[in-house]
């Protein structure tokens, strides 16, 4: 809604150039990584052959998708169709890599499909909980799912090649035990978090209108993390299945890994790490000085890397040499509690603070809009818009009277009203590049939606 209300300009702010440079850097890294992996040898050649075009397809699909959101309705369909086709091709190529060559080499596509089916409900649950927490102004599903897909396909690909190179250059030459474990922990922390964080950073640079504050940052960050966790879980489950199936314990091993990755580690893992990056970027969104913004973004990345590193390094501190299964199980649970738990606690505090700030600001903006007499927001609607339950109740009332079209129209109206309030808040804080007329266009669209809903 806000996107179409903004002026169409021939020039773009510098953040688009920054996003372009970042995307180019990712692509160059992938090319270098692929060539190096072929030269060194540890990455299967076929994975490289299929993986690089996959990444190219996903990047192109993202570009078309984002362009489609900004296009005129006449050409929007064409760009979105292109994005959809490229996404499908990319997903197919990547699944070819994943199923047949890289992770599931021995387990086979059937086992990979079963593992994916097992991870899908838990990942979906994580995303639903995330959306539920984002109670004031929910992020659009399309962007949340783009973030998840990027985490699953592009970030895993980036991290996979990077970690293979790191292992070859550093870890393989280190002494077995704590030194090698620490090196692996650095590798996972740095490479995986940077690979995931880039996705959040690109969203911040390109989709500024849908990236409002610390709450949005946490939501997008966690979504990227859920995607990454989904794909990594499948990789580990199939690997363990393939390793232990000859011993007759393949299924049990895969289920055990599912428990650690998709139950215990669903919120205490990748989702939490990348949410820390998102929190840093989200706080930066509303800071006035560039130096402050860079500092908190750096702190977000550092916190994510450190949290991930701490979780991996716990193995060196506590798990090495323990043989008793009960002690191992207790220590493995404690690993999540003590290594990731404190970071999750801080994240929840930041989320609560962000929701509080956002709620107060939105209520004030809605009230001011209602008092302005524009008609976009009625005084009686302010309390409804500020309560997820009452918003839902209003939509269900529309559903009862007008069916699904009525439900959808009220839903669009509520979303547009909240966007308008968010726009007012950002303008009040001088955080907008768009001119005031953009707000008026948005207001007119709210009025049009109200007319349609009536």
């Amino acid at each position, binding site marked *: 809604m806000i996107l179409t209300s903004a002026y169409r300009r021939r020039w773009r702010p510098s953040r688009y150039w920054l996003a372009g440079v970042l995307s180019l850097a990712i692509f160059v890294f992938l090319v270098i990584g692929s060539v190096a992996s072929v030269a060194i040898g540890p990455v299967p050649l076929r994975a490289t052959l299929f993986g690089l075009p996959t990444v190219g397809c996903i990047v192109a699909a993202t570009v078309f998708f984002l362009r489609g959101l900004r296009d005129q309705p006449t050409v929007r369909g064409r760009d979105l169709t292109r994005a959809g086709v490229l996404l499908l091709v990319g997903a197919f190529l990547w699944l070819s890599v994943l199923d047949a060559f890289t992770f599931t080499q*021995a387990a086979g596509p059937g086992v990979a499909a079963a593992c994916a089916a097992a991870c899908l409900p838990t990942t979906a649950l994580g995303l639903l909980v995330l959306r539920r927490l984002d109670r004031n102004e929910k992020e659009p599903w399309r962007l949340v799912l783009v973030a998840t897909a990027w985490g699953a396909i592009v970030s895993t690909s980036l991290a996979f090649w990077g970690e293979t190179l790191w292992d070859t250059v550093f870890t*393989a*030459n*280190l*002494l*077995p*035990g*704590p*030194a*090698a474990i*620490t*090196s692996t*922990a*650095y590798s996972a922390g740095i490479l995986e978090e940077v690979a995931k964080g880039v996705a959040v950073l690109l969203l911040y640079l390109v989709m500024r209108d849908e990236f409002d504050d*610390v709450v949005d940052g946490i939501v997008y960050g966690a979504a990227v993390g859920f995607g990454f966790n989904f794909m990594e879980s499948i990789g580990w489950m199939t690997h363990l299945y*393939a*390793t*232990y199936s*000859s*011993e007759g314990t393949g299924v049990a091993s895969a289920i055990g890994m599912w428990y650690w990755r998709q139950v215990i580690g669903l919120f205490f893992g990748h989702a939490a790490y990348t949410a*820390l990056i998102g*929190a*840093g970027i989200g*706080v930066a969104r*509303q*800071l*006035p000085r560039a130096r*402050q913004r860079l*500092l*908190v973004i*750096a*702190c*977000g990345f*550092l*916190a994510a*890397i*450190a*949290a991930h*590193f*701490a979780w991996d*390094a716990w193995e*060196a501190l506590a798990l090495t040499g323990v043989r008793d299964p009960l002690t191992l199980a207790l220590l493995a649970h404690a690993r999540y509690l003590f290594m990731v738990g404190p*970071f999750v606690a*801080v994240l929840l*505090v*930041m989320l609560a*603070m*962000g929701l509080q*700030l956002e709620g*107060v*600001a939105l209520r*004030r903006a809605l009230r001011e809009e209602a008092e302005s007499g524009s008609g976009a927001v009625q005084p009686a609607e302010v309390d409804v818009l500020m309560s997820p339950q009452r918003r839902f109740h209003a939509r269900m009332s529309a559903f009862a009277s007008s069916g699904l079209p009525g439900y959808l129209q009220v839903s669009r109206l509520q979303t547009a009203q909240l966007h308008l309030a968010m726009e007012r808040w950002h303008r*009040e*804080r*001088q955080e907008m590049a768009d001119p005031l007329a953009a707000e008026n266009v948005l207001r007119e669209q709210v009025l049009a939606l109200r007319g349609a809903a009536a």
Partner: protein
Amino acid sequence: MQAREDFRPLYWTMLGLGLVAVLILALGVVTLLRFAPLGEHTGYRAQVTGVYLYDTRSGQVRGAPSSHFRRDQPFAAQVQWGHLPEGMVVAASWYDSLDTQVGGIGPAPAGQLADHNALVPVVTPSDLHANLPGTYTLKIVRYSGGQPVEVINSKAVVVVHDP
């Protein structure tokens, strides 16, 4: 940090997180230096003749060296210990694809290992019927002051899945 909302608590929380992160990562560097100390590179390299099928009864290797083995085939590495200084304390261990140690010898002086023509066999864990499939890595390390300080060679072989 203007208008009516106070963003300072969020800002300072992020800076606090960043500070804690730097401390954690610095602890990691200390751990690395503790267990992989700098300045221990000697330039010595243990030569691995090859990895062979291993007869567990006679304790001898047989056949030609190979890089692939079936799960039910015990195997062992032959190392030319005599090429290392006699007094150098060394050890060699096998690690499976899950980084679990599965057999090894030492630490002992290289001269002693050379006298016994010591082999480095993989030991199948007692709770398994055969070796797990995947990549097995042999690491040969030099000891100093009772702790491993330098990797002086490594070699990888593959245990293939059952057909």
